[in-house]
């Protein structure tokens, strides 16, 4: 019995990692309608920045958020200005360009680090809380808490503030939003910036947990894609629940079936969901049939 709880907790904490990486992806995906393949690399960049701040200036990872997030926001704005916005009507070229960025960033980091794997051994991230026989690593718990807090915050922001409403208007109908006097281009710009900023949060919070290698973003991003589609395009809570679901499925499959097969199992579930409910668990029905087109 205790074992099941341990596995579930492990799954939820893993799901929180997926969910956190998926947040930025989902925002950009939902609002700007761009599949940013380089989102994982933005997380990687944030992780390396956090490492650098820790190793050279002794700044701990949670304080590093204050520096990393603005830096990533600026990077996101540049990304939008220089790459995504000019390719607004060329969805396939966007995939092409962001894939180019993946290769570019990964190998830039490879050159800088000479391929050496780096880790932050931060005592705080070693702390373990034992609760009813279940061991929980504090750094992972922070990821879970941050994911929940950001999701709630974004939910309130989108519901109750003017900029939030503007974003929702843009999600629903870009042309009408423009007619209503919303500066759509600025909304898109800020959204990509915010998406990159969320990657910054993810990177800073994940850096103390994992061993950094240039390709690590790629390990998160496939799962994050699945989470976004599983939860539903542009659905905040969909991504939250989707992330936790994927995590729990993976942990259970790994523990009860075979760790070597866990990826295949949740991919299979992901595909099954796509077939049965293509819009995702909480997505707007029909969104998947709109795809990129019809929203320009």
């Amino acid at each position, binding site marked *: 019995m205790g074992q099941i709880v341990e596995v579930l907790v492990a799954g939820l904490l893993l799901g929180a990692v997926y969910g956190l990486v998926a947040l930025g992806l989902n925002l950009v995906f939902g609002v700007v309608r761009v599949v940013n393949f380089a989102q994982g690399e933005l997380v990687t960049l944030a992780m390396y920045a956090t490492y650098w701040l820790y190793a050279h200036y002794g700044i701990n990872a949670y304080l590093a958020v204050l520096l990393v997030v603005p830096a990533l926001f600026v990077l996101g704005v540049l990304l939008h200005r220089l790459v995504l916005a000019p390719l607004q009507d060329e969805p396939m070229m966007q995939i092409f360009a962001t894939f180019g960025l993946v290769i570019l960033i990964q190998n830039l980091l490879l050159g800088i680090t000479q391929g050496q794997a780096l880790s932050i051994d931060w005592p705080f991230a070693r702390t373990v809380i034992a609760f009813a026989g279940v061991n929980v690593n504090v750094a992972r718990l922070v990821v879970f808490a941050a994911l929940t807090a950001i999701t709630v915050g974004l939910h309130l922001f989108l519901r109750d503030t003017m900029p939030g409403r503007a974003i929702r208007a843009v999600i629903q109908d870009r042309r009408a939003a423009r007619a209503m006097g919303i500066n759509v281009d600025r909304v898109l710009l800020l959204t990509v910036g915010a998406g990159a900023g969320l990657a910054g949060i993810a990177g800073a919070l994940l850096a103390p947990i994992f061993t950094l290698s240039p390709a690590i973003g790629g390990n998160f991003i496939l799962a994050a894609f699945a989470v976004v589609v599983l939860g539903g395009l542009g659905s905040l809570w969909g991504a939250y629940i989707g992330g936790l679901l994927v995590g729990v499925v993976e942990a259970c499959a790994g523990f009860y079936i075979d760790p070597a097969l866990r990826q295949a199992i949740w991919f299979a579930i992901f595909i099954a969901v796509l077939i049965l409910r293509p819009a995702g668990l909480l997505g707007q029905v029909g969104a998947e049939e709109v795809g*990129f087109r019809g929203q320009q």
Partner: protein
Amino acid sequence: MDSNEADATVLTTPAPARQVLESGARAAAKFTAGMALALLPLPLALADSYWLDIVVVTYLMAGLAGAWNIIGGFAGQFSLGHGVFFGIGAYTAAILFTDAGMSPWFGMPIGMVLATAVALLISWPTFRLRGPFFAIATMAFNQVAFVLVNYLDWPTNGPRGILIPFQAGLASMIFQQRWRYGVLTFLYLLLVTGIALLLRRSRLGYALLAVREDEEAARAAGIDVLGAKLRGMAISAALTAAGGTLFAMYLRFIDPPTVFSLPDIGVRFALLALIGGIGTLPGPVLGAALIVPVENFLRAHITTDWPGADLVVLGAVMVLAARFLRRGIAGALADGVRALGRRRQ
């Protein structure tokens, strides 16, 4: 649907697309024929096996990108899961050759049939998805295939992969001289381009174009959208599997990370077609002819104190190409030709 309707559909497409169609089809036919004549003697004349290797890979990748282009370009279905079909072609021929001694000339069609069957199974549910949903779902299939092939000791030999013994001969599709592979892969490229050309002018080809431009309009015009997409995918998958067989017999070693690599295989077909000019006939050829040699050149000539410097350059080239060569090399060439013509007038 009869051909009049097909023409009507074409006429209602937006202007730029129509231009590409009109000048594209005719120019492309001429261009391909010209390329065929120009390039065939090339591998035969090259004595240097370094360049022969690049030529072989270029032809093979051009053919594979061309196969992808049928569904990804003509029909606009951005599949990132073609590694599955590629893998089926590679593994089927390799397994039948090493375990049963069957010539890859028979293994290849078997792989093509299997790939077609799997393609139809995968496509039936995923074709409801559009744009990014379709791309991500097909990418997921590639990952499932990777994990399963790596996991199964039988028949794929798991992570150890399959080593194909060196038994030179036409029947075994293994040659001592590299130029023979050049001829083989060139024939493959010719086959893919020929089929694409025929398809382009067929009723199915027009239906695929109509689907790409506007699925609802195509459906309203009486086109069997799902049927057209499935047939396009079947052809594309079968041709991709044939390329997989050639790859396996050329390398004579396949293992899961090699065959199901997203950057080297699954996504690469799409990227080559994109940079060359998606949806055009010469696009995949141009994309492969540019990228494959450039990659080799960068890897061989950029100093290695900075690991990955060659790929940094490649990544930058991709971003810049996306920005400034939006219709690919084929589009840029067409623009250039048009500009020249105007000046002459």
